[in-house]
């Protein structure tokens, strides 16, 4: 691999990793703060992508579709928390798994009813349609760079929100001691509702901004969900920092696993098995630190 294509792959893996972080951070916050495992998180990613596609078609502008989509998914998140998730806080994880699995089936079918079963594409919006030349023969799409930049900005904003604001303090206190927070007169139910809706919106937003680079298709939520789980397992439950590190790590392993070749007895095994690399990484981390890199010891 020469330097130019190495650079392209590096940028690809960082962009993929950052996108994964955006999805997984919502998962890990909901795990860490409310103790809820949400299988339907991937469905919100899918819903985001379909919203980006259909709203862009209706409104005629991707940039207008984004805010409308965010408002809609925050509302959806609030509704889901109010209808279902809040009834699960005191319940065993088993029922959280079951209920959110039921939601996946329902969301997939609703998606089929509303948007059909076809694969769709969203055109890359102006002004990010061009490419930046890296070497004489290789260039890199500006839109992908924009995705990375947006996620970095969001990550910094999240850091300040959690570490420096009153809301963030409530969130951190809620994770540490629910009863104490309630004694302080903080409305923990509203904090939880906000956190859940925030997580939903993050996943949906990831779906929206990735729609122009990957196609919009049925079942796209399932794949993303499982990789996000691996991110959370590697990073440690509840750790946003861990999610960031793990997501970038997986981005690197996955992207370079696909382009590196490894021959065993004349057979080229790596590209076919690159899907496994992510999971082998998880297995290694589990042996080393079963609670994840930045997780609290159990």
């Amino acid at each position, binding site marked *: 691999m020469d330097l130019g294509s190495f650079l392209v792959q590096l940028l690809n893996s960082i962009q993929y990793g950052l996108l994964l972080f955006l999805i997984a951070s919502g998962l890990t916050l909901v*795990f860490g703060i409310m*103790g809820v*495992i949400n*299988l339907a998180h991937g469905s919100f990613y899918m819903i985001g992508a379909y919203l980006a596609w259909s709203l862009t078609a209706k409104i005629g502008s991707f940039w207008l579709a984004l805010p409308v989509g965010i408002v809609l998914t925050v509302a959806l998140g609030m509704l889901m928390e109010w209808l*279902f998730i809040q*009834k*699960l806080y005191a*319940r065993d*994880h*088993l*029922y959280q*798994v*079951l*209920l959110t*699995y*039921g*939601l*996946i*089936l*329902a*969301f*997939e*079918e*609703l998606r*089929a*009813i509303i948007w059909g079963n076809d694969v769709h594409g969203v055109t890359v919006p102006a002004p990010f349609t061009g490419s930046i030349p890296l070497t004489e023969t290789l260039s890199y799409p500006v839109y992908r760079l924009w995705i990375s930049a947006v996620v970095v900005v969001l990550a910094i904003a999240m850091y300040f929100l959690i570490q420096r604001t009153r809301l963030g303090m409530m969130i951190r206190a809620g994770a540490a001691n629910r009863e104490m927070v309630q004694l302080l007169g903080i409305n923990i139910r509203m904090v939880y509702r906000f956190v859940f809706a925030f997580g939903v919106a993050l996943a949906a937003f990831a779906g929206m901004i990735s729609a122009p680079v990957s196609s919009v298709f049925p079942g796209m939520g*399932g794949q993303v969900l*499982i990789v996000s*789980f*691996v991110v*959370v*397992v590697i990073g440690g*439950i509840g750790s946003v920092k861990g999610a960031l590190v793990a997501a970038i790590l997986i981005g690197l392993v996955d992207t370079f696993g696909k382009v590196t070749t490894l021959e065993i007895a004349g057979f080229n095994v790596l590209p*076919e*098995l690159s*899907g*496994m690399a992510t*999971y082998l990484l*998880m*297995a290694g981390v*589990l*042996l080393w630190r*079963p*609670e*994840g890199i930045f997780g609290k010891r*159990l």
Partner: protein
Amino acid sequence: MRSDRTATVLGIVLLLVLVALPFFAGKYYVQLATKIMIMAVFAMSLDLLVGYAGLVSLGHAAFYGLGAYLVALAAPQYQAANFWTSLPLAVGGAALLAAAIGFFAVRTQGIYFIMVTLAFAQMVYFVFHDTKIAGGSDGIFIDVRPDAKIAGWTPFDLADFVQLYFVVLVAFVAVYVLLRVVLRSLFGRVVQGIRVNEHRMKSLGYSTFRYKLAAFILAGALAGLAGYFGAVQYGAVNPEMLGWHLSGSVLMMVILGGMGTLTGAVVGATAFLLLELLFQSLTEHWQLLMGGTIVLVALFLPHGIAGLARPLFGRKDG
């Protein structure tokens, strides 16, 4: 004591009905009953983990699917596999996979365990989906059912739906009895103690890792057995048999019937498959109804159908 006797009588009546079924029911119903019994074995194996050991596995389909794939992989193309070698291969293969996954997964707890089992199962899914080992995403047909010939004599023919039904019935009863025995054994009590209070089991001197891993392997092996017969009946294998949707469905079966009772797993598998048929007959968007049902069960029926029946029969301790 009285409810014990009632249960025994009910069990014997059910067994007699099952034995007699092919003599009065048509092909459709015999095949449906075969499928239900296969899923019941699968659900019982998961109930050992979820209901008795307290291990919520969301990757149980990996073992079912591997058992199924081994039927196809054990057979030379266009020929039959040998039943007497391929069955132990499927069960043993699933057990081996469970040992490998369990070695990592059982170290973790709670939410981690759920995610890790799901992730490793998905890895197995990708192995069969992305490589050409067994037909990739299309899967493969099992052209000829496994051959049960032994020393020149063929005791049964799995291609015949009635004979397959009886073989599956034997496997179903055997697994039920086996699990009943195991749950009462020294091992079974340790596993149930771990579900209630793992920390205390450790301070009593039990190396809980070992027992949880053993339960995981046993459950995986039995799921492999179910997968074997699932593939034999269906006549084909595909990656969906390893997929996490099946893992979710079998978890639903266990809870629907009432977890922590083997009978509950059987009732749950039956109810789930019948509901599926009902919903499919109503609308092409039947998954919406199934998803809604699952949500309602999670919210309002945590002890499943057994929880509904409890007020009728009176509470039983333990």
